[in-house]
């Protein structure tokens, strides 16, 4: 090499971004330029020392909320928990301190939206018990909710039952667990139906809310509150919600 390597070439050498031929050329040059060689050695040592200094951070435990839609305290706790569940570390721990907002239908709509956003993107573990064990699923959830539950069929709308999971209660004042059923269509779109024991046995009309990017139709019907969540067209979602309601009230 007749010309000294450019500054850029020296850095690319340090960063291992050269072809073999370029690297040999730079090395030939460095063999006869002590000043450049010393600088290059210093830069290489910087990289090594940066790793010595900061690599320990990689192994540190952290307390960050990984999947948090917004800073609202309730939401972040929910998602901290969801992340924990997904990692399989445990259930229901962070949950206990959570104070629910207003109870009743508004709460179930929010719970449904949060659950939907948390579990629907899960490819491998969207549900705890799959639809292959539907009988067991329904019996298990009924037992845990302490009331006979049914998993409505959405086949006529193009959605198959994927399965379900149990969610921990959302507040101390409202200690009943929640059941989440998930459905999927041929395109991979998912809907989730949240079912919750309602203490006051009321009956409400259909209501609609949009939260966390999920649309939710929710209603209370006797001992249960229901919330159907999805990110599909509102009219379509409402049609399916009506279908659910009719199946549960033949």
């Amino acid at each position, binding site marked *: 090499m007749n010309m000294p390597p450019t*500054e*850029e070439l020296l*850095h*690319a050498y*340090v*960063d291992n*971004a050269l072809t073999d031929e370029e690297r040999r050329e730079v090395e030939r040059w460095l063999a006869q330029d002590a000043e450049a060689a010393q*600088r290059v050695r*210093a*830069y290489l*040592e*910087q*990289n*090594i*020392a*940066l*790793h*010595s*200094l*900061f*690599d*320990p*951070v*990689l*192994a*540190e435990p*952290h*307390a*960050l*909320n*990984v*999947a*948090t*839609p*917004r*800073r609202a305290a309730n939401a972040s706790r929910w*998602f901290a928990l*969801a*992340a924990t569940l*997904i*990692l399989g570390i445990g259930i229901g721990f962070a949950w206990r301190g959570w104070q629910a907002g207003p109870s009743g239908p508004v709460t179930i709509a929010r719970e449904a939206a949060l659950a939907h956003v*948390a579990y*629907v*993107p*899960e*490819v491998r573990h969207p549900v705890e018990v799959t639809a292959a064990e539907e009988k067991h699923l329904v019996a298990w959830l009924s037992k845990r909710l302490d009331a006979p539950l049914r998993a409505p069929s959405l086949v006529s709308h193009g959605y198959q039952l994927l399965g379900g999971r149990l969610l921990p209660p959302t507040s101390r004042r409202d200690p009943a667990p929640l059941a989440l059923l998930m459905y999927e269509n041929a395109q*991979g*779109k*998912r809907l989730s139906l949240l079912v919750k024991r309602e203490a006051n046995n009321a009956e409400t009309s259909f209501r609609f809310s949009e939260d966390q*990017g999920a649309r939710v139709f929710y209603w209370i019907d006797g001992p249960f509150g229901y919330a159907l969540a999805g*990110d599909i067209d509102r009219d379509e979602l409402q049609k399916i919600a009506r279908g659910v309601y009719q199946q549960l009230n033949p």
Partner: protein
Amino acid sequence: MAEAFGAAELEAVVPRLRRYARALTGTREAADDLTQDALERAWQKRALWQPGTDLRAWMFTIMHNVFVTGTRKGRPTVSLDDLAVEDNRPAAGTSVETGIVLGELARSLEMLPGEQREVLLLVGLEQFSYAEASEMLGVPIGTVMSRLSRARERLRLLLEAGGVGSERPAALRRVK
């Protein structure tokens, strides 16, 4: 929605985000603020992520944007005064291979302008290519190279001077 990333994929990126944030900000607290804000922004914008592309590179881009616009706690970067009193930097010691005193490296790093520190860390610590760094920072490759060159040379001189004691402003020497 099915093709978007989930919390598990994001969690897998967190250790490297935290390492970078720690190196960038100097303290654990500021680093976790930065990482948390970046995670929240990523989650809000996850529909914008192109499936099949590198989630880690995308996250670092978001973290860069949060870093330059400031975390929500309202600190654009950590001031040197904060660092002086918070003194909870990574463990001190000496890099066996290089003889560099790690505490001096940490202090010298803080003396670099933020934009030089970013490039130095993205390339030297996180081992992104120049092209990736250029994309993340939204600057031409030539700018990446010149920042990298200045950062490394400045750091070399700082370390050769035996740490930055002589360069630290008087305000930093005060004793608690």
